[in-house]
């Protein structure tokens, strides 16, 4: 059982994490050098953000066997942008105790006030949570992400990074409501051994398939974060078996997703929810296997005061327990019932506690159950 062999991050044993720190640090240094040399004209503006966090995780009640694990994790998300007259450069680099990765590097051209065409590596618009919070832990209320919205290297089942073209377009309506559209096309992740691996701009390899992604949203008011909408994607995920015998004859996975999301705000309440249908066609050399499932989550948040938020989340699904595709991802979080409380203090700092009853996919359709206690400090510094 993998949990007995290593520490955990987002329900995933750390020994499976890619330790790319040494390889990426020189690239990070070079990137910082290039960015600082970017020309600053009279109209140019830099934006620099640091989003540090530190997490403590305690896991208990594993079944079977009854093993207790704990983990301490720290990281900082570095966001930089340069905005010129009609051009923008945006980069996001995550440096943590587990990984060092260039998450986003995109160059944008703004042909009109309400549109931006990006080229580079960006987060898939077909995921609400990912395109709303990115790697900024301080901005999301909960410590954990819904399993539907996990990153590729943290048990995710759908592409979260695409390298290619991304068009964002807003249309303001007469009543100050806004229709937003985002369309992306590019290289998606490959399936390597037991996880999805996104295209790495600092270590490009061939063999990545096509990813198409779409999000359409409606915001009732221009200045309010409330919104709801539709997301969809088509992904051709090429497979590299590595040493995984289950993948020996699997050539490619074609994945179609379609779903809805909502982020509504009332005076003391907020509700974030998404429901996404998945259809996978696993193309083996001797034939294909299809499966369908639905993944969903509901996260209500109650503002006890300006500084305290009580929240919870239910991660549920239909058909995922017996999915042939998800069975290839044994650390995928199939169910999680979670409650937590967050305290905002000082200038842009927060302490969050979460307790969760969690199940992960496991081997051979046998779910593994455990309890998680998490404590996180997060902040935003500019």
């Amino acid at each position: 059982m993998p949990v007995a062999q290593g520490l955990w991050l987002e329900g995933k044993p750390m020994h499976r994490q890619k330790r790319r720190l040494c390889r990426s640090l020189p690239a990070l240094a070079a990137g910082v050098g290039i960015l600082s040399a970017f020309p600053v004209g009279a109209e140019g503006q830099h934006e620099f953000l640091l989003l540090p966090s530190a997490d403590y995780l305690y896991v208990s009640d594993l079944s079977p066997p009854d093993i207790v694990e704990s983990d301490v994790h720290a990281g900082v998300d570095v966001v930089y942008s340069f905005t010129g007259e009609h051009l923008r450069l945006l980069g996001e680099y995550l440096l943590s105790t587990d990984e060092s990765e260039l998450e986003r590097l995109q160059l944008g051209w703004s042909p009109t006030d309400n549109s931006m065409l990006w080229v580079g590596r960006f987060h898939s618009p077909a995921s609400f949570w990912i395109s709303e919070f990115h790697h900024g832990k301080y901005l999301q209320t909960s410590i954990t992400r819904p399993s539907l919205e996990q990153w590729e290297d943290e048990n995710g089942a759908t592409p979260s990074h695409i390298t290619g073209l991304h068009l964002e377009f807003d249309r303001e309506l007469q009543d100050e409501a806004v229709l937003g559209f985002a369309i992306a096309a590019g290289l998606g992740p490959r399936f390597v051994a037991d996880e999805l691996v996104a295209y790495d701009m600092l270590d490009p390899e061939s063999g990545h398939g096509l990813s198409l992604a779409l999000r359409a949203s409606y915001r009732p008011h221009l200045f309010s974060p409330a919104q709801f909408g539709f997301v969809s994607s088509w992904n051709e995920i090429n497979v590299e078996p590595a040493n995984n015998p289950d993948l020996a004859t699997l050539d490619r996975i074609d994945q179609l997703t379609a779903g809805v999301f909502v982020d509504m705000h009332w005076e003391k309440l907020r509700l974030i929810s998404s429901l996404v249908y998945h259809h996978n066609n696993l193309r083996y050399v001797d034939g294909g296997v299809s499966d369908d499932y639905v993944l969903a989550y509901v996260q209500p948040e109650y503002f006890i005061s300006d500084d305290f938020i009580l929240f919870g989340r239910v991660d549920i699904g239909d058909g995922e327990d017996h999915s042939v595709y998800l069975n290839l991802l044994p650390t995928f979080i199939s169910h999680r019932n979670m409650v937590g409380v967050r305290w905002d203090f000082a200038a842009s700092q927060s302490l969050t506690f979460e307790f969760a009853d969690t199940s992960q996919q496991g081997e051979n359709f046998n779910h593994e159950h455990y309890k998680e206690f998490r404590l996180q400090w997060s902040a935003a510094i500019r």
Partner: protein
Amino acid sequence: MTHRVTIPLLLASLCLWLDAQANNHSVVLVTNERCLVSELSSLDIRKAYLGVTVSVGDQVIRPLRVVGDPELDRIFFQTIVAMSEKSYERRALSLALKFGTPRPAEHESVEEALAALQRTSCGIVFLWAEDVHASNNTKTIRVLWQGN
């Protein structure tokens, strides 16, 4: 009797006059003389300060702020962007993370802000009216707030 009544009356009048002067502050939105913008709606000003691109003709409006004056900050949050400081900060963080949107350029002093204003083709900054009179090469677009 005359002096006993007149002096307190004069002092009271002086106090009332000083109070009226103090309360007669106004906050104005200014740009540099080269900028072709002559008027901006309250909505466009709010948009510009909340990270929404606003253009007039082919000129993009660049918002600037003088920070550190508590009264000016209060007017900014209450009147110009109409949201709490916490909501404003959260929105600015969110836009920077999602789209790389820069927040309004922040300056510690009026002099610094006015110098920055001259370096932009079409920047806007809100200031106390009396700070604007003393400066050159600016034009007032509108009065944003008036105390009385």
